[in-house]
């Protein structure tokens, strides 16, 4: 299995810490609804870094990469489909 050097790992940690600082910093700026999406965007970036460098997801091959994305997609669909209901309550028709 692929070996990751200490240097790479530390660099990744550095980026993760910077991103943490960034997400705390932007939370003080009022961007309206955009704040949530920005926070989620930064969190997703951090999550991808952890997946790629700490969890070596790429070494596992296509099956794991695709099924992981599939799981996340399924979760997203779950949330989106639930919003078909809660976002449209009180409207008549489609």
């Amino acid at each position, binding site marked *: *299995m692929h*070996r*990751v*050097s*200490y240097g790479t*790992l*530390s660099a*990744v*940690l550095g980026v*993760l*810490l910077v991103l*943490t600082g960034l*997400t*705390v910093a932007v*939370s003080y700026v*009022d*961007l309206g609804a955009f*704040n*949530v999406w920005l*926070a*989620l965007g*930064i*969190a997703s970036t*951090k*999550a991808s870094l*952890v*997946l790629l*460098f*700490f*969890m070596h997801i790429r070494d*596992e*091959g296509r*099956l*794991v990469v695709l*099924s*992981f994305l599939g*799981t*996340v997609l*399924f*979760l997203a669909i*779950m*949330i989106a489909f*639930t*919003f078909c209901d*809660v*976002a449209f309550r009180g409207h008549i028709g489609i």
Partner: protein
Amino acid sequence: MKPAMDDRGKRLGMWLFLYTEVMLFGGLFVLYAVYFSMYASDFMAGGKELDRFFGTVNTVILLVSSLAVAASITAVQRNEKRASVVWLTAAILCGALFLINKYFEWSHKIHEGIYPGSDDLIYGEPGRNIFFGLYYIITGLHGIHIVIGMALLGVALLFTIKGRITGDNHVFLENAGLYWHLVDLFWIFIFPLFYLVL
């Protein structure tokens, strides 16, 4: 037939288990998303009541512990047993530190009269009750996962010391590590969703 040591298969099993964990938390995130859209302002007010400093420190602690776990695998692969033991111990200590922080955070809140079913929450704004209800359930579930993760890392530490985890055979450590990283991943999302909602 199964090859004598199919590490890839064992990791695949672990990944599949991680998917179940993702969906377990996913159910709670569905609730979070819906209630956030219903009670956005209450959630923002609730987020301000949580201690950002504690939250940030805990985020850093978990990120460092993730690094430690990843580094311990690199160390084992290089047959540096000692280094691996040190890294693993550090990771477990980070987990403990996280829990101690969490304990202080929770007890502080409970002291203030904010806990599930408390008068403050029940008779206050409904959105606030939901926010703190979710806060306790999600961080509580996450805390349980931290404990399980620490236990797994502890076993890995023991195996490393006893020489059962070596450069050629370290799939147990890798799987424990995968679990730990996943717990970290959850926190990466929990942190902005609770502490930083604006």
